[in-house]
């Protein structure tokens, strides 16, 4: 039998060991942190995949929660510091908000436009501020611009495809290089002729109407940056219409939206868009009347 004194000693020794253990861990972590900040740049917090991040302390069932998180981009399982967000959550929220702002206010680079052999035109908007305040100007072009489009593009194409910055230049940068060749390949596979592609700065969806008229395109298709949100700033949409008219109702247009890395992949969306355009040409209609 162990007497009480021995027992106390043993317990004390164990506690001592445990304390050592804990402090050793803490030192290890501090050393690692220090090493990291010395060697590397500051870690980009937006690199963390939110769906895999789980900040609740002492969770009942971490795996089950992470499984739920797989199905949503909502910021679940962020834990809390008292009644507030943890620092990491707050910083990430602000970083994502900043990315959304940047997506709106930056321009699509000339590099991308050159790489893809596009030429660039502008709507009637003079700058981004005017673009945001005057939606009506984002769907109109000057006569000179229309003449330029008319001069540089093939007339009467079966399909006219062009890109526009819309509300996210980031989305165009992230997806255009992958989606455009996929649409082109799909359409060529169906023996459908595509017109000359170009890029519209300060463009809204309805900019397709004067363009379709100007070039006499059967189907007009614009790849345009979506209003960015906190989940992604890279989401692209593809709006399409058959025989687009100026002032046409929205119900005559089709859209494939949510094209980004965590949504529909750009290449797969492009392959599908080719099918939608094919259906428009076959059925000679678009929007709600289109059966797809």
């Amino acid at each position: 039998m162990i007497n009480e004194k021995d027992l106390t000693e043993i317990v004390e020794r164990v506690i001592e060991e445990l304390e050592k253990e804990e402090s050793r861990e803490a030192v290890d972590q501090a050393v690692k942190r220090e090493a990291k900040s010395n060697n590397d740049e500051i870690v980009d917090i937006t690199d963390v995949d939110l769906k895999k991040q789980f900040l609740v302390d002492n969770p009942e069932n971490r795996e089950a929660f992470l499984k739920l998180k797989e199905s949503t981009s909502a910021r679940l399982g962020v834990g809390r510091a008292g009644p507030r967000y943890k620092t990491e959550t707050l910083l990430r929220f602000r970083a994502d908000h900043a990315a959304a702002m940047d997506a709106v206010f930056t321009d699509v680079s000339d590099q991308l436009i050159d790489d893809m052999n596009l030429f660039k035109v502008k709507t009637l908007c003079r700058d981004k501020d005017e673009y945001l305040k005057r939606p009506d100007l984002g769907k109109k072009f000057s006569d000179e611009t229309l003449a330029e489009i008319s001069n540089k593009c093939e007339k009467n194409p079966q399909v006219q495809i062009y890109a526009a910055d819309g509300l996210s230049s980031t989305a165009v940068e992230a997806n255009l290089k992958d989606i455009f060749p996929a649409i082109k390949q799909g359409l060529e596979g169906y023996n459908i002729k595509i017109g000359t592609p170009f890029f519209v700065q300060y463009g809204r969806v309805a900019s397709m109407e004067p363009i379709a008229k100007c070039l006499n395109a059967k189907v007009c298709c614009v790849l345009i940056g979506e209003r960015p949100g906190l989940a992604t700033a890279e989401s692209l949409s593809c709006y399409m219409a058959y025989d687009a008219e100026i002032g046409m109702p929205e119900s005559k247009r089709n859209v494939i939206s949510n094209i980004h890395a965590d949504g529909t992949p750009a290449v797969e969306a492009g392959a599908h868009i080719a099918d939608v355009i094919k259906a428009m040409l076959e059925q000679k209609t678009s929007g709600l009347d289109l059966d797809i």
Partner: protein
Amino acid sequence: METIISAGIDIGTSTTQIVFSNITLENIASDYTVPQINIIDKEIIYKSDIYITPLLSEDEIDSVGLRGIIEKEYSKADISKSEVSTGAVIITGETARKKNAELISKEMSDLAGDFVVASAGPDLEAIIAAKGAGVDQLSKKENALVINFDIGGGTTNIAVFDSGEIIDTACFDLGGRLIKIDDNKKIHHVSEKLKKLAESLNVELEQGREIAVHELEVLADKMADILTEILFAEVKSDDYIYLITNHDLKKKYNPDYISFSGGVADYIGNQSHQDNYDKYNDLGIILGEKITESPLYKENNIFNAEETIRATVVGAGSHTTNISGSTITYTSDILPLKNIPAVKIDENEINSEAEFKTAVKQKMNWYNLEDGHQAAALALKGKKNYSFAEITSLAEMIIEAEEEIVESDFPLIVILEHDAAKVLGQTLNRILDHKKSIVSLDGIKINDGDYIDIGKPLAGGKVLPVIIKTLIFDN
């Protein structure tokens, strides 16, 4: 929304059953995104009577008798063969080892509908029964490890699900009908393995001898012991190893729940039943009672299976059909394709183009039979967000690696897990100048060595039904 009829036919050691299910497909995506057709509902619309499987002799199935049962049930259900879009005929348990099993299953699948697949094999049976019992859903919902024991007449099929995914299967030659007695308690038939097992238990199993209840209890007790070993024994006994049908579980599991299906399950944990032990002239009822007394039952959380004796047939009818992704590419006049073996390549373990080609060629060669080629499907995990350049080089790599298939009359079949099949298919078509029949599918998880059937298009051509068979006729 589109509803199709699926048939399930289970030809087991003791019983034969048929069910019909309505499977409802719907595009669950909004009009503003690419389509996403899902199976949104499965509903059993007809359950047949439970028939004793007709046999000509102990090792031959009576095909005329079976045909009669199927025709009668189709007419009772008022469903014609042409209305059935999908489903499975599965020959299970000991019946799968009868000498005419393979032939019968093909015959019955023709009788049941154009795209009703024929299949057998203990691994697939275990998975189908567990799904019919609702184990996959429980495991998914509770993020739990669940083991189903489907205890039939001739075999016990075990399936292990973790978080909704099948992770292991095993099969044992244990069941309620390994011994049959007649109305005078005289032994009518005993399986070879049970005979051998009985020797060490000092129970004589000579045909024609009258057998006492306590002797049946000794046998059932032994069987329950062996089933208990599956979860509790550190070292397996010789008898245990002797009774393995094809393979054991890969390791010892610690399940959150276990469940029982199959005919014997009706007598497990069911103390209130009023049936005499000899109601079915076999060991089933006593075996069920002995399992109830065993640690296997007592020391585990028990999930009450949604189906017991009908688990396999319900699984075959409702849970065998998968739906491909909704953006895919295929040459429609070559469908349906049946019994296509899958060659799975893990691209994450491949470092170079040359390595990829070698790996594909090597595995494809397994299916090059003496009389030429067999159409094998190339299965890849794929990745979430390919660039167009990556898709192009993947297509080029596939074409080079599969040059023999490209030059043959067989279609080029590629199956991906991640959503990229439509663009990959269009790229393959472009490079091959639209001259080759291809099927490029995604949204389907398949393992190396699985067989698949690919049916005719559904939902206006957006999706293809796919049935994955874990093994056909494990010889």
